């Protein structure tokens, strides 16, 4: 029965137990997490551009980002998209707060080499220890790469720039293709800001992120990335 779910989580929680068996799995999950989260984040950063050179130039000036987002999950099983809403905060070089306000409040914090996730359950927030959050380190590596404008050097995705302006990312490795088939980014007219990101898993499943109220280079206190300012159990 669901016993395997337990085992599956144990694979994630305790990779040492089944290191050989789960190496490929962990890589897949890491790539998946990295791909989706990086996509979500980096679209706000890299923003407006006609050429890779412009992107490199513009993205180099971004120190902090704050934005609200609306996430649409389109699936064949759903008659209407599943909507999530939240906010993100980023501070160079490696601090991130990715916060969902609905339907399930949760906060992902990455700061000073630590990665924590808290999910609201009942009266307070509980730490999510089920996912192997160390995989998120990959995300930070990717963000650092992109912030320097070198996302053509991305080891996981080929990047293409199209009129729109639109950026299309396609996986370099076949192992990633069953997880993410492509990612499309619609850039805003405002330099450094992205309007939408669409992550295609397959023909029947996509995640669209619509960003708004983006504020660049606003001073952000480190406490935003260190704590969630709510009861934690």
């Amino acid at each position: 029965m669901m016993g395997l779910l337990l085992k599956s989580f144990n694979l994630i929680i305790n990779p040492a137990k089944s290191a050989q068996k789960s190496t490929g799995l962990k890589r897949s999950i890491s790539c998946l997490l990295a791909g989706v989260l990086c996509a979500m984040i980096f679209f706000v950063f890299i923003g407006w551009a006609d050429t890779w050179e412009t992107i490199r130039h513009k993205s180099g000036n971004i120190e902090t980002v704050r934005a609200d987002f609306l996430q649409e999950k389109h699936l064949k099983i759903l008659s209407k998209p599943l909507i999530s809403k939240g906010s993100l905060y980023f501070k160079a070089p490696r601090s991130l707060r990715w916060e969902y306000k609905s339907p399930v409040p949760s906060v992902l914090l990455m700061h000073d080499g630590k990665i924590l996730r808290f999910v609201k359950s009942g009266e307070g927030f509980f730490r999510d220890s089920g996912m192997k959050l160390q995989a998120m380190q990959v995300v930070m590596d990717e963000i650092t790469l992109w912030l320097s404008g070198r996302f053509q050097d991305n080891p996981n995705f080929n990047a293409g720039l199209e009129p729109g302006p639109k950026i299309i990312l396609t996986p370099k490795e076949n192992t990633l293709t069953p997880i993410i088939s492509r990612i499309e980014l619609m850039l805003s007219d405002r330099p450094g800001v992205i309007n939408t990101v669409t992550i295609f898993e397959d023909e029947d499943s996509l995640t669209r992120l619509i960003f708004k109220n983006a504020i660049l280079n606003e001073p952000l206190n480190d406490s935003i990335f260190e704590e969630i300012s709510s009861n934690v159990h």
Partner: protein
Amino acid sequence: MFINPGTMTPKSCNRLLHLIYFFLIPVFSTVSCSHIPKIYKAEFTDPAQILERCHAVFPDGDRRFVHSIEAELGGGNNAFMLGITRISPQNRTIWAVVMTFEGMVLFDAVHNDSMVINRAIPPFDSDFFAQGLMKDIRLIFFEPEQHPVEIGTLLSGESICRFHTHEEMITDVTIGQHSHVTINRYHRQRLHRSVRLHRGETQSDPSIFQKLELIAHGPVKYKMELNLLEAEFLNE
């Protein structure tokens, strides 16, 4: 009898361990391995009414549910995700999707007589996981196909319908106070799964529950708590 630790020899220590083994462990085993409760004749309620209430626990038409899922995995580890379930009781078909809050689909499969896996990302890609997930969903949402073998009340006064679902498998549906429902499945006389269903205060449909708790007993223990985010009627 009192034992002074300062005067204990290795031999007396062994005796103490034997005492613990022979007395305490069976006590804990008795507590942890709940057995099938006795059903009494309902004195104040018509069995037909009890059966009707048991029927009402399970959806009678196609439904789609979105739940947030919290899994307690032991050792203080908790995992969180989203679950989308589309059920069709008439043809006993389940379509289940498990995904992260970020929208990553980890598992997508349809099951009726056979299993069709549309997507399964490691470590959710084993047939064993898929079969187990579908069995748990079936227990929660589908009324047992067999007629009840007993209808009555428990010693505590709760109404109960008992189904012999398979050989050596018994499913009890218990209606408690405030319409809280418990579904217990016993395998070889021992509690195998228990599901506690709590209705929301504003929920008018008796087959829609705001909160579900599934506990797996036996050698591999886990607990899943599902909170309803969306419920949709599909064919009414």
